[in-house]
């Protein structure tokens, strides 16, 4: 039962990273690829009708984590108190900048929101990566089941590491690069002309950085978290996950060159899904590894009561089937390239109704 929920929560987090990932990435490159006000409106229009639905995956994954693994929710969220609060602040700034930018036309209003949108998106990508890095590395849990990590200590992987050390920073940079590529491929797919070309060039050059960093992070992760090696030798089929990531990267390269934008974007989705599932596979059955392996939180010791988990399975599948249905309907309604003016999908986030 706990393994099922472990997989379902991982699935929801993956859905969040794939979906909100492209709008975060689009935000992170906003100022770089979109030069004119027109182009910036186009970038926003491409994510306008879907970004908050994407963010619901975060809320839903958080809620699911809460009820399936309450001890993890309590320990992890209070232990990552400061960075998590900062993530919440960044999410606030970002959401508001997307929604409020086009309300007023002024030489100070739009540039302010464009800057905030870009900066908060990029920082969120780094924070998410660092969070994943912390989970893989393990946190200073003790016998009470709690820990508290300061933002940084000495940037080394000791027994009392901070949120930021050389490893988590490295993962954070990889996350930023990967989401920049993902977002650039989205903008490439959803727009036309110079903007689309610039996004394609951005995705192409970031590809090298992502590939390089992925190899580096994979290599050091095996040293940082010994459990990864154990799992891959115990269940060799797990190698499918990193292979999925590698195949995704290959697809991005090939289809970007062939100008098959949709497949290139799918390749990037496969890459992100492969990297995430590899990490999750590597730490299983732990849900929160500890620096001292004795105190790790596992799916078994962090789970909720069996009755609740069983009942949850029933409504979870019904609810997610409905949610996937609505999301598909929305994406289909706003399919195709965006342009400004007229009815949606055109129109920036706040074109007149």
């Amino acid at each position: 039962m706990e393994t099922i929920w472990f997989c379902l929560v991982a699935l929801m987090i993956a859905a969040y990273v794939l979906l909100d990932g492209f709008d975060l990435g689009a935000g992170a490159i906003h100022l770089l690829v979109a030069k004119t006000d027109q182009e910036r409106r186009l970038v926003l229009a491409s994510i306008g009708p879907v970004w908050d639905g994407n963010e619901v995956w975060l809320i839903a994954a958080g809620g699911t984590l809460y009820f399936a693994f309450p001890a993890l929710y309590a320990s992890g969220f209070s232990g990552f108190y400061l960075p998590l609060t900062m993530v919440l602040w960044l999410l606030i700034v970002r959401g508001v900048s997307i929604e409020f930018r086009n309300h007023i036309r002024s030489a100070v209003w739009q540039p302010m929101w464009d800057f905030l949108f870009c900066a908060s998106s990029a920082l969120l990508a780094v924070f998410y990566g660092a969070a994943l890095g912390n989970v893989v590395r393990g946190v200073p849990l003790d016998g009470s089941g709690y820990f508290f990590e300061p933002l940084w200590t000495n940037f080394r992987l000791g027994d009392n590491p901070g949120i930021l050390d050389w490893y988590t920073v490295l993962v954070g940079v990889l996350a930023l690069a990967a989401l920049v590529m993902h977002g650039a491929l989205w903008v490439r797919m959803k727009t036309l002309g110079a903007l689309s070309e610039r996004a394609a060039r951005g995705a192409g050059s970031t590809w090298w950085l992502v590939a390089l960093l992925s190899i580096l992070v994979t290599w050091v992760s095996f040293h940082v978290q010994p459990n990864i090696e154990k799992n891959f030798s115990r269940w060799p089929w797990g190698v499918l996950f990193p292979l999925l990531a590698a195949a995704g990267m290959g697809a991005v390269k090939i289809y970007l060159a062939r100008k098959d934008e949709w497949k290139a974007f799918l390749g990037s989705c496969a890459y992100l899904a492969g990297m995430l599932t590899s990490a999750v596979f590597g730490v299983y059955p732990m849900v929160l590894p500890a620096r001292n392996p004795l105190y790790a939180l596992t799916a078994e010791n962090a789970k909720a009561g069996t009755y609740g988990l069983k009942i949850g399975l029933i409504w979870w599948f019904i609810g997610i089937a409905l949610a996937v249905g609505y999301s598909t309907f929305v994406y289909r309604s706003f399919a195709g390239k965006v342009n400004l003016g007229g009815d949606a999908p055109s129109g920036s986030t706040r074109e007149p109704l």
Partner: protein
Amino acid sequence: MGLALLLVYLKTKALRTGDEHYNRGARFWARIFGINFALGVVTGIPMEFQFGTNWAEFSKTAGGVIGQTLAMEGIFSFFLESSFLGLFLYGEKRLGRIGHWWAAFLVWLGSWMSGYLIVATDAWMQHPTGYTVGSRGEILLSSFWGLLLNKWAVWQYAHTMMGATQTGCFVMAAVGAFYLLTGRDEAYGRMFVKTGVLVGVTAACLQLFPTGDLQGKMVAKEQPVTLAAMEGLFETQQGAPLAILGQPDVPKMRLDNPLEVPQALSFLTYRKWNANVQGLQGFSKDLWPDRISLLYYSYHVMVGLGTIFIAVMLVAAFLLWHEKIYRSRWMLWLLMMCAPLPYIANTAGWMTAELGRQPWLIYGLMRTANGISPRVGAGNAWFTLIGFTGMYGVLAILWLFLIWREIEIGPEPRRLDAAGTPLVPEH
């Protein structure tokens, strides 16, 4: 949530009458809804995560139960609401008249369903049901329907939703009154006043009876010490009076300058003029709510405003029925000035519920002091509290500014500048 209901009302009128004014009115309120929704989303996410960051021990103990309703809220309501809001705001032409009505309806359904699931979470903390306690002290779910159909949830939800509806109605009527008083957009002004008053008078009455009344009876039965503190009743007595005004003096155990209706509290609570009502002295002090004066005032502000709302709405409905309301400037002034009051009443109502539950985090099961995050120090909590306060302050200013701008731009199809940004019309 109140505005979501009114949007469905306006879209229904548009479909039924074919009058394009209703569609334009709905678009105007949809723009305001969009601003509110964006702020609601970004300020709502922290609330879910704060269960983990700041109330870790509570989450660890009770997460298996209240996590159910919170997760269901995300999965059933937020996906529905956010998907169809996107379609409602940006897809009117694409969806057609009927499709657009459905989008409005589903946004309403999503938001009202999320209201139920979050109130059910709070209701479980007020009156826990459907649980057992495990070997390590953790609270386990034992009955899904016991949690979901908690009687406390049903009545608290109905009462909360009437508060939300009244807020939407008062704001809509106030904007309508503002247009009529300033002599602009009069067709819309009349539409907004009429809609606000018609729906508002119903909601105002339902707020008191049966929803408020039943909520009060539940508090009397399940949280009698809370009732005593809310009412400022220190002595246990038969035929207890209802305090309308007065200042509680907790150390001296009395209400100063009381303005009371004799025996009314006994009657309202037990439907008997001579019923015995327990005062605070009848309970051990460690069961008293921590902030008795604040609780007393919150409750009295809520009830006082609720009574004023009923009076204002009944008079407005009477004038509307006689078709005099659009010309009676004093009534329009009154409606306009009432706009902020439902926000205060709702806040006071929630303060009553949450202060009244103290010193319990889960009533009878877990003390608030035992629910906090053991490793989060006060210095860190202050850091985030100051950050949130500053950020929410800025958001409040932005909200007021943008809403005011939308009201100034008004419901008529808008004049746009070259880049498609609406201009404020000159009047």
